[in-house]
């Protein structure tokens, strides 16, 4: 019974909350810029509007262009069900699910980038090339972090690696490693979700974009699916970091959910602050930063293995 309630809550939060994170980020940025900013619920209004609109498809495109948003949404939707939001359970959980999570995101990338190339547009090709290139460096950083968690908890199940097994004791004994992993995964979050300093979704120049330029040609419901999937992905990485960061057990529901939601709020505000106070780095410097992320996680595991 408790599991059913927990899973219902998980699904409810994971599928309704994510657009709000975008709203919070935008509000934070508006605050810094001295503007009033859009309503907190604006991302929801945008999604509803997009789902009601008609679409335009380029004559160059094939079924791959339509498959992009579908695969993009389904893979991320499955992935968010594997992260333990509270306590030590997630709706989908089995030994080795961490590998499935990473490879679902790989499938997502394959079809998003292919859909971009399907348009034949040079700009979208450019975005696709950047996306897959940066992922090559983000992936090892993510896995090195997973090694740390697997070593600490002795488990290969995300629900246990990130859950309450991790929190209480390990922040005292292996705090340095966990901190390094957290830093490294923050960089991975920013690059995977195309936030400043890696990518500026609000820039007016297509030449400098990464993710946004890949989806230039999408419109209507398909574009709505892409935006929604992007917010789910932000939620996914945010939840990973929140669950590492919380240094105590969050077993009970009445206690766990507020703590988790508070954590997500902090992540969203932090992204907003970062985006308001930093300029984006030059494209050629992004690999350097990503290598730094790999090294941070790498040091994290080295201090444990010795």
């Amino acid at each position, binding site marked *: 019974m408790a599991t059913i309630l927990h899973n219902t809550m998980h699904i409810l939060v994971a599928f309704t909350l994510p657009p709000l994170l975008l709203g919070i980020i935008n509000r934070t940025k508006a605050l810094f810029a001295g503007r009033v900013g859009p309503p907190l619920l604006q991302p929801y209004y945008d999604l509803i509007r997009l*789902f009601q609109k008609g*679409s*335009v*498809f*380029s*004559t160059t495109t*094939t079924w*791959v262009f*339509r*498959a992009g948003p*579908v695969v993009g949404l389904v*893979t991320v939707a*499955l992935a968010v069900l594997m992260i333990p939001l509270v306590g030590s359970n997630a709706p*989908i959980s*089995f030994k*080795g699910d961490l*590998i*499935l999570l*990473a*490879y*679902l995101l*790989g*499938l997502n*990338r*394959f079809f998003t*980038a*292919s859909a*971009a*190339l*399907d*348009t*034949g*547009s*040079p700009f979208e*090709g*450019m975005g*696709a*090339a950047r996306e*897959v290139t940066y*992922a*090559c460096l983000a*992936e*090892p950083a993510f*896995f*090195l972090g*997973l*090694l740390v968690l*697997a*070593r600490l908890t*002795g488990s*290969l199940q995300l629900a246990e690696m990130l859950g309450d097994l991790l929190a209480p004791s390990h922040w005292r004994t292996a705090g340095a490693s966990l901190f390094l992993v957290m830093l490294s995964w923050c960089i991975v979050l920013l690059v995977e979700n195309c936030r400043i300093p890696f990518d500026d979704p609000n820039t007016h120049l297509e030449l400098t974009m990464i993710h946004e330029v890949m989806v*230039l*040609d999408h419109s*209507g*419901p*398909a574009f709505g*699916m892409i935006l929604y999937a992007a917010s789910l992905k932000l939620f996914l990485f945010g939840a990973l970091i929140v669950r590492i960061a919380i240094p105590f057990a969050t077993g009970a529901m009445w206690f766990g959910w507020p703590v988790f939601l508070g954590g997500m709020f902090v992540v969203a505000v932090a992204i907003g602050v970062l985006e308001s106070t930093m300029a984006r780095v030059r494209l050629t410097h992004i*690999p350097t930063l990503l290598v730094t992320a*790999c090294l941070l996680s790498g040091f994290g595991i080295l201090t444990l*293995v010795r």
Partner: protein
Amino acid sequence: MSERLVLIGIVIAAVSGFPGLFLSRHSTLGQWLSTALAVIGSAVGLSSVGVFWAAGDSQPIVRPWAIPGGEFHVAMDGLSALFLVPIFLVSLLGCVYGLGYWKQAEHPDNGRKLRLFYGLLPAGMALLVIARNSILFMVGWEVMALSAFFLVTTEDHDRAVRETGWIYLVATKVATVSLFALFGLLHAVNGSFKLEPLNEANLTPGITTAIFVFMLIGFGIKAGIMPFHVWLPSSHAIAPSHVSAIMSGVIIKMGIYGILRITSLVPHPPVAWGGIVLVLGTISGVLGVAFAVGQHDLKRLLAYHSIENIGIIVMGIGLALLGRSLGRDEWVILGMSGALLHVWNHALFKALLFLSAGSVIHAVHTREIDHLGGLAKRMPLTALCFVVGAVAICGLPPLNGFVSEFLIYLGLFGTLGVEGKSSFAEAAFAAPALALIGALAVACFVKVFGAVFLGTARSEHASHAHESPPSMIAAMSVLVACCFFIGLAPFAVAPVLEQAVSAWAPSLGESRQGLLTLAPLDSISVMALVLVAGLAVTSGLLWLRLRNSVVETGPTWGCGFTAPTARMQYTSSSFAEMLVGLFGWALRPRIHRVKVTALLPQPTDFHSHVPDPVLDELVLPTFRFSAWLFSWFRVFQQGRIQAYLLYIFVALVALLLWR
């Protein structure tokens, strides 16, 4: 029973090309006859494996043989059965594919030669896989190696083909010499040429190391492990595509089989073996895919991916060897199951990719990726087959590649959990390397799929492409079905894998844990089905939504530019440019770039190319130097076969006197 059946299959496959030799080069009867025979032979071979799996016991066939030390000794075990499946399956499908791809009417000069050796090749491989005597093994090995040489040089009127064939021949002969040394050492240890567990009493550290080195060189060259891969890229690229499919899918696996067979004979492999093999596998994997990213020849690119996948297989073997040295059964089971399943998977998806590439070449007559484009519209079935192969080779769910990589990942992560004397947590660092390999593979296949099948055609030929004939599509469809089957129901292959693992490591004993208790293959299966169902439902919803709303078509949004041309698309080279730059220290790309100086510059050009540095900068100079060093030896090189026979006679007499 199964041994007899497989011998029958071998004989039928071996003779399949002969009837065609007696028919006119303009008759198509020969092609049909040889294809029918090859299909029957392969089917008999496959059924022998089925009989073995069903009965589970083997009845070795042992016959005396006149050759000194030789003995006709064949037997089935789990390992042999597992390798027989890709041998017969890929050659069967390759023959069917050849009906449309290499029609006798279109290739009257070399069609008969091709089919002769296309029959001999699986026969040789099947023989070496069931041989239990090293001389018989070498007979099968040489039949395979020489058939492959004649298959690579099918179009020997072309100078580039002859040169590539020459490199292949030199490489395979070096491997053979190394194997002679290896089997000589085994003879010294065991006192016979039987392939039996080594006698530990005679194993000194020196001999053990020598066995390891000759094994790695001999079988490593055939498997294409870096840095022994020099022959591989160009010969895979230049051979006809159904030959490339069997070369990449099956022949290089014979090197893996050799490594497995020899390591299974060593009672206690040293820890260093596993460590070195794991490192070699990681290097092959990462650099193989990095070189693939830099290629712009469709088949050469796929060939480098073979090196990558061999690397992944070798990583699994390294982990299993470590497990045997340190007594960790779960590493043995996970690593070896992953490696063996990847042997199958790679045979399936790489054959699929080479056959789809052949379909493209059949239609467009070029291998140059940057001259293709937009083929998904004109060749929808080929595009679908290719994308299935691409997703599978990237190790992405819900297809088969994911399952084998999943097993290897589980094993590698498992090394973290062990403390104390039998720990080897360093092995876990191979997991992020495997993640890097996966991400690079995604980058590479997005590049190929995008540049070849998506966008608009970059050349006149590509815009007039046509879909391939049914025989080619049928062969590819079978492989697509196999990729989906293993991806969706991986637990079905678990018994076969367990049987093969226990054939490799008999020390595991009966009380070992099953593969299914170590790896949640049932969960993988459920998740793959959920993923497929989710994709179907979401596609359906999107389709419904689009049907009930206004859908217009128009040109691609050019960001304000209104006259886009096909030449403005991102090419495969520009797509890979950043990654080639990141791996520039290893790839050493050759870039030709003219600096633009004047205010109104003249037309200029740019091209870049990633050659193979090991071949160009290490192997070729070494061979040139040794050719110079031994130039005096040419005195004996008469070019007359009588003279060579005389040399052999004199050498034998001298050896007899010396004894």
